[in-house]
């Protein structure tokens, strides 16, 4: 029987690890919801965001409060450029799903090759040290960084939820996601909605790469693995259900963390690919929880 403290520690560590995965999945899922595309070019955006931060922090000696926003702007701009000069052109040609797939995947690979040429293939972290002060609370080790990571992730999700619910642009995104042509009839620009989505995805991806790159070594190829996690989360959460995608990736990360109790760590990735395959074949529309029936008042006779 495993010690409950160990189980709780794995739960906490898994949740912290998931903080970056959740943001990546939400970015991917939001893009999929609004544009209807599986945008693998976001792997390139991840690379741009991480290496922009790395370059500014380590080579230019800039502080984080400059590096982080600068990387977010660059990532958002690269997403918008992809939208305007790539995806929009393909849409105008009524291109099929394979063309979009090839374009986004090859664009991601092009960016990865450029980053490999510029930064090499050695794993890099954003900061020289990956250690932070740790407190023992109820027998569980909780680091300052852990709280920071979870806090950033939750704040970003709350901000996104508020944006989608309260702002005009947020409402326009939902309208375009529901029916782009109908939205355009009401004067909402689908192109603008796609660009706003790309910008939001750029910000979320930058935050995720900050959380991920501060604790793990990243190579130019790492984003291709990260984007698969986002794809699986999006699928399991159900397409069009952005925050459920985030929740699914949290659960996946926890399952991966707990799996070390029964399988070797090198098999953890296989678990993820297995989930991807099963998710598509068994739950192609995501996992839908049963809805609670609403009881309507019955009219009383007489």
């Amino acid at each position, binding site marked *: 029987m495993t010690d409950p403290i160990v189980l709780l520690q794995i739960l906490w560590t898994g949740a912290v690890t998931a903080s970056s995965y959740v943001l990546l999945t939400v970015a991917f899922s939001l893009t999929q919801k609004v*544009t209807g595309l599986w945008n693998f070019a976001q792997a390139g955006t991840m690379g741009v965001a991480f290496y922009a931060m790395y370059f500014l922090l380590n080579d230019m000696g800039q502080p984080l409060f400059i590096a982080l926003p600068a990387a977010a702007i660059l990532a958002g701009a690269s997403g918008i450029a992809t939208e305007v000069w790539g995806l929009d052109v393909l849409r105008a*040609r009524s291109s099929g799903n394979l063309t979009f797939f090839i374009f986004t995947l090859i664009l991601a690979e*092009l960016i990865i090759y*450029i980053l490999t040429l510029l930064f090499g293939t050695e794993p890099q972290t954003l900061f020289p040290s990956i250690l932070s002060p740790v407190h023992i609370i109820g027998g569980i080790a909780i680091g300052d960084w852990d709280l920071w990571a979870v806090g950033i992730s939750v704040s970003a999700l709350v901000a996104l939820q508020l944006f989608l619910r309260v702002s005009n642009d947020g409402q326009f995104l939902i309208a375009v996601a529901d029916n782009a042509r109908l939205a355009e009839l009401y004067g909402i620009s*689908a192109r603008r909605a796609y660009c706003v989505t790309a910008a939001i995805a750029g910000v979320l991806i930058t935050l995720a790469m900050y959380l991920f790159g501060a604790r793990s070594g990243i190579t130019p190829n790492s984003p291709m693995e990260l984007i698969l996690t986002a794809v699986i989360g999006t*699928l399991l959460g159900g397409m069009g259900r952005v925050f459920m995608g985030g929740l699914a990736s949290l659960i996946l990360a926890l399952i991966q963390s707990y799996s070390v109790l029964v399988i070797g760590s090198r098999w953890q990735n296989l678990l993820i690919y297995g989930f991807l395959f099963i998710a598509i*074949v068994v739950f*192609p529309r995501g996992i839908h929880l049963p809805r609670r029936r609403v009881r309507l008042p019955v009219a009383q006779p007489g």
Partner: protein
Amino acid sequence: MSVAVMIAIFIILASSYNLVIGYGGLATVAHPIFFALGAYTAGLLAIHTGLSAPLCIAAGAIVAIAASILLAASALRVSGDYLLIASLGFQLGLLQMIRNFEWTGGPGGLTDIPSTITGAARTPAYLAICGAVAAATVALIAWIVRGPYGRAITAMRDEELAFTALGRNAMNLKIVLFAIGCGIAGIAGGLYAFYYQYLSPEQFDVLQSATILTMVVLGGMGTTWGPVVGAALLLAIPQAITFLDLPPAIMAPAQGIIFTGLVLVFLFLRPSGLIGTSGRGAMPAALGVHDHSGEGT
């Protein structure tokens, strides 16, 4: 001449993929894993059993066919984007297994695959063999798609509902077509293993999927000669910078940039492929009209 051998092997691979995706309309990206299964099976048998090369290659093809039936029976229930991603999961999962098992050489790769032909005649001999197999593959596929079976494939791809309503079993046809394409990919893998004598999981990853998909699409999906042109062009052009004698750390990404850059240029300038017709109605469905306005997602 080594590049020519590589081109011949990729003509086999791209043509077999064209049969699956171009003629059959089965949008999977897992083709490199059948290439890998053929290669690893042939390589392992050659190392551990000493069987002759043709037998090892045939065994590789059989393993690839068996795996393709496994994937087809489960994943062909879904289509479009779903099939693309399910096949990606299948490919990456099997690659992860190859990477983790020690008997496959693990991440370091499988070495010591015996050379069946040695001496100065090795590369010309392999070129002749691979060239002959490539020609046979192109001829076989042309024969399949021009006969009655080909008409059934086209009908199934273009109007599956009507095809089924006529009493034909679309699923069986898909599985057979998939098995033929993947079996040929397994043969290509066997040839690859014996020529290069070294296999590693990275040679069969997502980039390889994008590579052969690009060869098919840019050459002309659903055409006999499209994959031939696509494979020759996309493998030959990046070799143009080898004369610069750059260090490997620069050469590999530089070739990758040229390759991916070329793909993007062709994708926008010749979306229907170099051999394909320019009329939109002639495009395979996967490349042609498709709604990406975000509706109904």
